[in-house]
């Protein structure tokens, strides 16, 4: 029990706005720099050095944007639900801040995955939109993000908004697998003939490396941006505290 207590003490300590602001300020340049390097190297590798796909030609190179964005769109929603649950259970304010800072970033990833999927679909399917299982799930996920953001902006009291959004995110995250499964089932029934060309069952190592670089780059990019957004929110929320005054006056 003692260990648990000291762990919680440490978490509360780190989660105090002042310490979060200081530590995140140190982390952001590292995360951001690393993300930039990974994204640039991954893009160049994916665009110019990865071999041409024998079926799809060069159009498959969209995968290096589309798939990491789709992964992140799911991951960010999970982060929102987890931090929402942490905020509800342990009353850690910082977790609320992380959840609400994540929502627009997750929505941006979802939008990116949707549009790149549609651009990729045009040469592959001959149409800008096909009711493919992955695209449809991604569209529904976008609706979930928009609902979250709409609820947040509709409730005036920020504390109440954060708690309501936390409940919504948890309900959403429980439903996502069910929605995903049902969309997939619906898709196989209605379009059994068309093979989902966005699937890459076996991928060559020279294509896998840029994909993994990009995926890691996306993750670090998210970490950087979410910390920046959270810092802004903390700064604004704590504006009447001495440490914020000291920081602002120092500039």
């Amino acid at each position, binding site marked *: 029990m003692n260990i648990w207590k000291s762990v919680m003490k440490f978490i509360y300590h780190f989660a105090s706005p002042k310490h979060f602001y200081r530590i995140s300020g140190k982390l952001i340049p590292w995360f951001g720099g690393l993300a930039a390097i990974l994204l640039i190297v991954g893009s160049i590798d994916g665009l110019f050095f990865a071999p041409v796909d024998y079926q799809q*030609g060069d159009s498959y190179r*969209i995968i290096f944007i589309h798939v990491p964005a789709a992964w992140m769109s799911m991951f960010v929603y999970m982060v929102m639900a987890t931090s929402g649950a942490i905020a509800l259970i342990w009353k850690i304010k910082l977790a609320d801040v992380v959840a609400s800072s994540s929502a627009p970033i997750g929505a941006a990833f979802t939008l990116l995955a949707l549009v*790149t999927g549609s651009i990729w679909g045009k*040469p592959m399917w001959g149409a800008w939109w096909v009711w493919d299982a992955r695209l449809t799930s991604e569209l529904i996920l976008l609706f979930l993000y928009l609902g979250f953001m709409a609820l947040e902006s509709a409730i005036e009291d920020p504390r109440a908004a954060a708690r309501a959004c936390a409940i919504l995110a948890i309900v959403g995250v429980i439903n996502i697998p069910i929605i995903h499964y049902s969309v997939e089932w619906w898709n196989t029934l209605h379009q059994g003939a068309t093979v989902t060309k966005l699937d890459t069952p076996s991928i060559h190592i020279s294509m896998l490396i840029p994909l993994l670089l990009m995926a890691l780059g996306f993750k670090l990019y998210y970490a950087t941006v979410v910390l920046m957004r959270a810092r802004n929110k903390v700064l604004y929320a704590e*504006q009447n505290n001495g440490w914020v005054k000291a920081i*602002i*006056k120092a500039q």
Partner: protein
Amino acid sequence: MLEMLQMGKYGAYVWSSYGLALFIMGYVAIKPIMDKKLIVKELMMKYRREEHQLANKQSENKQEQS
């Protein structure tokens, strides 16, 4: 080199995807930097106003006393 940029016949699709990614992710990354500048500006004005009010009040108090 030019051939490489054309990506077979898929150049427009590939480049528009990467361009869009650059645009969206760039905007999402730059937005908080701009926001921070605005917040710092707003808070600085606020603190200055508070200090002025405090100073005015103190001088008024002194005048009343004398």
